[in-house]
């Protein structure tokens, strides 16, 4: 590729991030997609691979005694410090990485190059693996209150929404059109989640163009329609996720928030989540804390506090919990917005969905949720992740915060989720890697224009294939449709070492309970297979089973084995225990 000036540099040092340990020496390679460091100073071939798109910053530092330092920080929080022997090579690598990490055009992203050995059909089917529209069906739509409309099929109503939108059945066409006109960027109120049990709904939109005093009858009608779609409540909540001050400042620009006097039976509420700029700066400060060399406990805790990061995570969680409680406990519907309704709103709606619905706590359910609330509702992945060279002020860790909230829930509910931490980390990796097409583009329309489904692969089938690694062995689906009511006391929020210090293995527990249990689950599957096999052989010897040929004609795995894929619930483990007991008498076979 034209950007690679020097594809290979030898005698490069890889420094330890924290200590003055002897650096590793090796060879640095630049390929079209990766930076690879192969250690030559040790006997075992140790390799470090970094996908170019993961690189957030490359920094050249002044010459040191041993060479030219080059510091690389990645979007998955991997930090590597190289020392390159010659200035020219350092310069070359630096410039190449700048170009490679953030190409000028979307078409230069890895996804358009990536081609696993799959045929065209597999690729096309892969894109159909997760269909967010199907999720509405799962929720019971259409029903007597809600329906799907194709008013946005050409993205005329709202260019950043999906083409299929859930709206109240009683909302007339002109109500919908009028409401869209009164909302910033046409992002009209639309259904995010419908809670069958309570009839409560979570809807989302952008801020109204209310300014100081403007009002819009259609918008008021629209909210009324949403409220009436829930026979269980006489009112509905309108939640503005911004701090009140920010929302008020928007009024001067002709935007703002709902005037409760104009809307009947709404309860208006601010929840005070900060904007993308505050979040970006907060993450920066958090990463500075992570990068401190041998900090004292005080430095660390003070740094953590000053970064404000956990405060923001708690704010998002609080808002999610507020929504879930309103729907589940008060049986009320909620309309959520922030400014544009694609950052904070996405965080809060998706979090509330997880709290309310066990489906989103499954491996496939989380895919559906991300597809539905983030990708199809226009979270601007291209800009927020900084996939291509663009305005750095548009970059913000909004999606990362969502994953962190989920991780915090997993910590409080260790049996409540089908997936484990690795799953969240892998999703996070792929949001930034651009290896798959899912997280490229800012909205559905852009993705269609780019013809991503024809040119790239979907990440979901890939994750599904590897789902064995992502299973939480402790998952109990018997928890069923229980609504999660996490505690949001500050002491329940922990620093996510597995994310922000993921590559600093020394800081992680040296033995992982998760890995240990995953190995056991694997052994269990093998053990169960062996057991059935032995029992079958014994039965044949006993003459209980006539002959082996008939057995072979059966599909062996399907009838005798439980599916390997999902975590076994304690319930079916119980059943298997019984089988052990029942089959135990075969031990007497010798006497026959």
């Amino acid at each position, binding site marked *: 590729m034209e950007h690679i000036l020097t594809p290979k540099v030898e005698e490069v040092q890889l420094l330890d991030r924290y200590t003055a340990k002897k650096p590793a020496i090796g060879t640095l390679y630049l390929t079209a997609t990766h930076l690879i460091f192969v250690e030559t100073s040790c006997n075992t071939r140790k390799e470090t691979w970094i996908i170019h798109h993961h690189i957030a910053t490359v920094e050249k530092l002044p010459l040191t005694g041993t060479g030219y330092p080059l510091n690389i920080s990645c979007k998955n929080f991997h930090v590597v410090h190289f020392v390159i022997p010659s200035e020219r090579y350092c310069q070359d690598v630096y410039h190449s990485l700048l170009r490679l990490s953030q190409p000028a055009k979307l078409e230069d992203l890895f996804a358009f190059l990536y081609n696993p050995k799959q045929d065209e059909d597999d690729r096309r089917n892969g894109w159909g693996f997760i269909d967010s529209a199907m999720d509405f069906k799962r929720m019971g739509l259409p029903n007597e209150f809600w329906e799907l409309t194709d008013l946005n099929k050409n993205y005329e109503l709202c260019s950043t929404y999906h083409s299929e939108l859930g709206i109240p059945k009683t909302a007339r066409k002109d109500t919908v059109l009028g409401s869209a006109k009164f909302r910033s960027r046409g992002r009209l109120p639309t259904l995010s989640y419908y809670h069958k049990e309570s009839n409560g709904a979570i809807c989302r939109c952008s801020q109204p163009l209310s300014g100081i005093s403007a009002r819009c009858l259609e918008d008021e009608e629209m909210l009324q329609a949403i409220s009436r779609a829930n026979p269980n409540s006489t009112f509905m909540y309108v939640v503005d996720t911004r701090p009140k001050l920010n929302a008020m400042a928007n009024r001067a620009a002709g935007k703002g928030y709902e005037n409760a006097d104009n809307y009947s039976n709404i309860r208006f509420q601010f929840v005070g989540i900060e904007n993308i700029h505050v979040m970006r700066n907060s993450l920066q400060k958090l990463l500075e804390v992570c990068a401190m060399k041998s900090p004292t*406990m005080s430095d660390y*805790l003070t740094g953590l506090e000053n970064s404000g990061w956990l405060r923001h995570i708690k704010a998002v969680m609080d808002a999610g919990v507020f929504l879930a409680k309103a729907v589940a406990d008060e049986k009320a519907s909620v309309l959520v917005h922030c400014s544009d309704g694609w950052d904070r709103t996405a965080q809060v709606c998706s979090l509330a969905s997880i709290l309310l619905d066990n489906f989103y706590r499954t491996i496939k359910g989380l895919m559906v949720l991300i597809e539905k609330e983030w990708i199809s509702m226009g979270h601007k992945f291209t800009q927020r992740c900084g996939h291509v060279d663009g305005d750095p002020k548009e970059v913000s860790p909004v999606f990362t915060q969502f994953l962190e909230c989920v991780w915090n829930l997993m910590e409080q509910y260790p049996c409540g989720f089908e997936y484990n931490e690795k799953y969240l980390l892998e999703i996070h990796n792929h949001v930034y890697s651009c290896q798959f097409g899912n997280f490229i583009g800012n909205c559905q329309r852009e993705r269609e224009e780019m013809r991503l489904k024809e040119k790239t692969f979907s990440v979901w089938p890939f994750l599904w294939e590897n789902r064995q690694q992502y299973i939480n062995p*402790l998952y109990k689906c018997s928890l069923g449709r229980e609504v999660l009511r996490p505690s949001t006391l*500050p002491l329940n929020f922990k620093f996510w070492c597995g994310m922000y210090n993921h590559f600093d293995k020394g*800081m992680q527990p040296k033995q992982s309970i998760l890995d240990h*249990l995953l190995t*056991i689950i694997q052994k269990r599957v093998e*053990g169960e297979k062996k057991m059935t096999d032995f029992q079958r052989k*014994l039965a044949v010897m006993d003459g209980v089973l006539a002959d082996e040929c008939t057995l072979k004609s059966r599909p062996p795995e399907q009838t005798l084995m439980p599916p390997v894929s999902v975590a076994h619930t304690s319930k079916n483990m119980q059943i298997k225990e019984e089988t052990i007991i029942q089959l135990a008498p075969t031990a007497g*076979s010798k006497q026959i």
Partner: protein
Amino acid sequence: MEFAELIKTPRVDGVVLRRPFQPTVEGTLCLTGHHLILSSRQDNTEELWLLHANIDCIEKRFVGTLGTIIVKCKDLRVIQLDIPGMEECLNIASSIEALSTLDSVSLMYPFFYRPMFEVIEDGWNSFLPEDSFKDLESMTDEWRLSDVNQDYCVCASYPPLVAVPKDVDDDTLRKAAAFRHAGRFPVLSYYHKKNGMVMMRSGQPLTGTNGRRCKEDEKLINATLRAGKRGYIIDTRTIAVAQQAKARGGGFESEANYPQWRRIHKAIERSSVLQESLIKLVEACNDQSHNMDRWLSKLEASNWQTHVKEILTTACLAAQCIDREGASVLVHGTEGTDSTLQVTSLAQIILDPTCRTIRGFQALVEREWLQAGHPFQQRCVQSAYGNGSSVKVRCEAPVFLLFLDCVWQILRQFPCSFQFSEHFLVLLFEHAYASQFGTFLGNSAAERAKLKLSQKTVSLWSWVNRPQEAQRLSNPLYEANSLVIWPSVAPQSLLLWEGVFLRWNRSSRCLDEAYEEMVHIIEYNKELQNKVNSLRRQLAELETDDPLQHTE
């Protein structure tokens, strides 16, 4: 004294018990000599049995004639009792106050407790110094067991038998003892089988301002060095604190007099500072009105995690000197009964896999804490709620709790390397502060002998080592690991010990459920593998027994 004198109202009906995350219970409150009991008569499962000794402090409140007593326990639990009737409430409160602060040790519950279980193995004899010395003898002949302290005259806080270098006679020991704080001359703490290096502990040398020296002390510790080898003296205090100690007759080993030793100063705080830290930490954990910033800043200001990090860092240093540097180590602070023991016992957890077993850990607590003269009685007289208002000299301090916290940190980082689970650590914390067993009574071996604890009370180890209890405390993930385990002491790696500090501040339902599920998965798999093996054997037997059958 009769307990009845202290109990003005032995029984009140209609008392309401409120506890966070548990249903409210109404019932009859009874006071006995050692227990506060609340029993709801309808349902016997909802009973509260609280040892008076577990009560750290109480607060009274009145609304009309309804009195409320808030009971704050040493295990950090806080409960509320609503008592109808002002007089009853006052009587109950004053009785609790009197009964929970009994001066005389011999009135404590362990002297009255009769075990409801069969004592299979008397814990008082489970970990005798003679036995542990036998293990040492099997590895080396460079040490001997000295009975110089047989009558506790040389050192009041040492046990009658201590391990010392073979070539050093008792007379030298006596002289060295005179040169060390409270007579705590250097004794063997740990022998590292892998390379023969040792860890010793002592009190500070009494050099004073004029730099006194003691040839016998020098001889004693030099006798532990191999020819041409150097050793490390780890002083758990900062150099500034150690300097100040000189003014009070203490001090540290000067390099001139101990040329074969390199001195390293660390910064483990004194016990009074640790107590303040515990009080602040528990206050922060219990205040649910905090926002995030306030919580983090209070957590930081409590300094608890700083102490954890300091202690672990020092223990790692000691272990490193021994295992990596191949050097012997002498550890001391001021008295040698607090920070010194934290360091020597944690270093052994890191170095010696035996200490990570259930019995090995008991032996370690027995050897490095009880026998080594950690003043449990003094340190555990109050916990986080005791503001020590009435006490003249404050001597309570969570030294042992900090040690347990550090063990928990290592356990969290190496969840498969310990035979015991977190439950064991929590249990030791509880029993150190209030117990029906005599193990943690007294401040030293001498005091325990005088109290005749081994005849008059039951040992905690007698209970713990029953098979069903050992099973409950064992770690399902355990796979014996003979390696040295190096914990990370980066702040990110050290967490707040939720099992103790947040135990009463949140619902444990989901976490308990997860633990049970984990046990279930492991047990099921074990059963399954056994079954597979037995089937395999059967099959193999059948095949060899009757080869014809197979071909039929």
